[in-house]
């Protein structure tokens, strides 16, 4: 184990009181479902939220109440870990405060950036913007992830984002970049299977080959969670199809197949169903989670057979 990994292996002691996220299917908890979850107390094994939606006192109170009943994961979107303009330390502090209160089993953010400086002023855009995969960018992300993990006192999982463009100057593949990041910082990886599919298709590449590269470049033991979601397909004038990671529909068949392949290689992991736009009734998400759980159960059976 690298020095970086060793540093954060012990950091989990900080989260000793956190309820661990089980290697079962979970659901992304969104505002329209709060009442249903509060009143009916579904048998969902764990939930994940965007902590940025719960930093106001009333929302933090609400989240704390959920966290008393369910294991909780915090999936941040605002750390801007890829920003060459540095971390927003005030935002990091707010995340740390919430993390201390909620004691989540997992904390994650993305391999992307959203904040920069224009002139003398900060500009924070609500999007996960792409990075060129260069040595300079790697150095920036390593530094930011290191600072964030130190402040939070725990390992972060870093998610592979959906991408719609690549930079000419990229010298590394996304998978190799993430692998190098893991090696340098001891962070973990949140493998978003839908994003692997969307990004590969947008590049005109084979998603199965893309998945294989991720699994080859990233140590299996550092992959701590998987995400599944739906995406939209938009035809373009040039005849190509643009896939947009809108989290607004059921997981498509191809992504289920990729997920099954990933689990066959990795073994059981927490698998989260994300749905953020055109949010359906909660039973629809439960149905998606049940399908994910079916994959996990088959994975566990297959593992047992090969022991």
């Amino acid at each position: 184990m690298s020095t970086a990994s060793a540093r954060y292996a012990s950091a989990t002691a900080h989260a000793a009181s956190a309820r661990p996220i089980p290697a079962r299917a979970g659901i992304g908890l969104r505002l329209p479902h709060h009442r249903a979850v509060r009143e009916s107390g579904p048998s969902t094994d764990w939930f994940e939220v965007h902590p940025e939606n719960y930093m106001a006192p009333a929302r933090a109170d609400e989240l704390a109440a959920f966290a008393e009943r369910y294991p909780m994961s915090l999936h941040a979107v605002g750390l801007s870990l890829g920003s060459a303009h540095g971390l927003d330390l005030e935002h990091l502090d707010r995340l740390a405060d919430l993390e201390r209160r909620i004691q989540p089993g997992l904390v994650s953010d993305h391999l992307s950036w959203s904040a920069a400086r224009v002139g003398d002023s900060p500009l924070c855009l609500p999007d996960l913007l792409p990075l060129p995969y260069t040595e300079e960018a790697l150095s920036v992300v390593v530094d930011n992830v290191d600072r964030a993990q130190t402040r939070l006192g725990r390992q972060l999982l870093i998610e592979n984002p959906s991408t719609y463009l690549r930079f000419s100057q990229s010298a590394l593949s996304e998978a190799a970049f993430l692998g190098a990041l893991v090696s340098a910082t001891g962070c973990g990886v949140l493998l978003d299977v839908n994003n692997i599919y969307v990004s590969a298709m947008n590049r005109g590449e084979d998603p199965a080959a893309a998945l294989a590269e991720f699994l080859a470049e990233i140590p299996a033991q550092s992959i701590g969670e998987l995400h599944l979601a739906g995406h939209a397909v938009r035809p373009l004038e040039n005849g190509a199809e643009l896939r947009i990671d809108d989290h607004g529909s059921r997981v498509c068949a191809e992504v289920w197949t990729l997920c099954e392949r990933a689990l066959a290689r990795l073994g059981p992991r927490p698998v989260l169903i994300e749905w953020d736009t055109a949010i359906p009734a909660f039973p629809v998400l439960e149905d998606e989670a049940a399908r994910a759980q079916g994959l996990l159960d088959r994975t566990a059976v297959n593992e047992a057979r090969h022991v």
Partner: protein
Amino acid sequence: MSSLAALQSRMAEGLWRGGDEADLAAIAPGPIPAHAAWGVHRNTIVSGLTNALRLTYPTVDWLVGADFFDQTALAYIRSHPPMRAQLADYGERFPKFLCGYAPAGELTYLADVARFDLAVDEVAALSVGGSKVCVDLDAGVILQLEGALRVLRTRYQVDRLRDAREDDGQSLEDLDMSPRPYAYALWRGAAGTLARVLPAGAAAFLEAVLAGACAQDGLNALLRESGEPGLAELQSDLFLAPFARLQITQTQETAP
């Protein structure tokens, strides 16, 4: 500035301003044209900021309709760059923006509606049962006010405009829309923000004591606003209000 920092500054500014794509030369060719890829990010940013405004200003959205709200939001976004990581913090200057927004010029009530929406949203974000504001009224008599209590002055009946969303606008038919002074108390209830119309004198008293003034100064403010008839407002609209509680402290008498 590093080359990555410079690239990110240019990209961020280009995406926010909505102009031509920055650094197209930096983008590798692929099946997806650069402008289409750029458009995904631009749309995500604009829709994210617009939705944040829509959530904070639901009555404004309902009154003007989705298309006009989107157009107004876009104008606001272009002139008010988002500077913080939390979307919930975006848009606090929207009411002031509406005052000078020419396409909404005839909707003279709109800025006040926005101010009310914002106040409701801000109070709702506070925890239930926070610390109280205590005002010494007299020896042994304390007026306790909800800690999240605030006073809002408007020129229109903004509470009824907000409530009209619930009946699909039917109650708008008999709503007096002529401008005149109104005042509201807003505070945090168990299920969200509560609001109540205040007479002007009571509003003046509350504004003074919530700003740290003593009860006598609050009383003077009430009298300046409403004269002696305003004194009756103290009992009916303050002491017996759901956001207030009178506490009588016991005094101990030493036995001879």
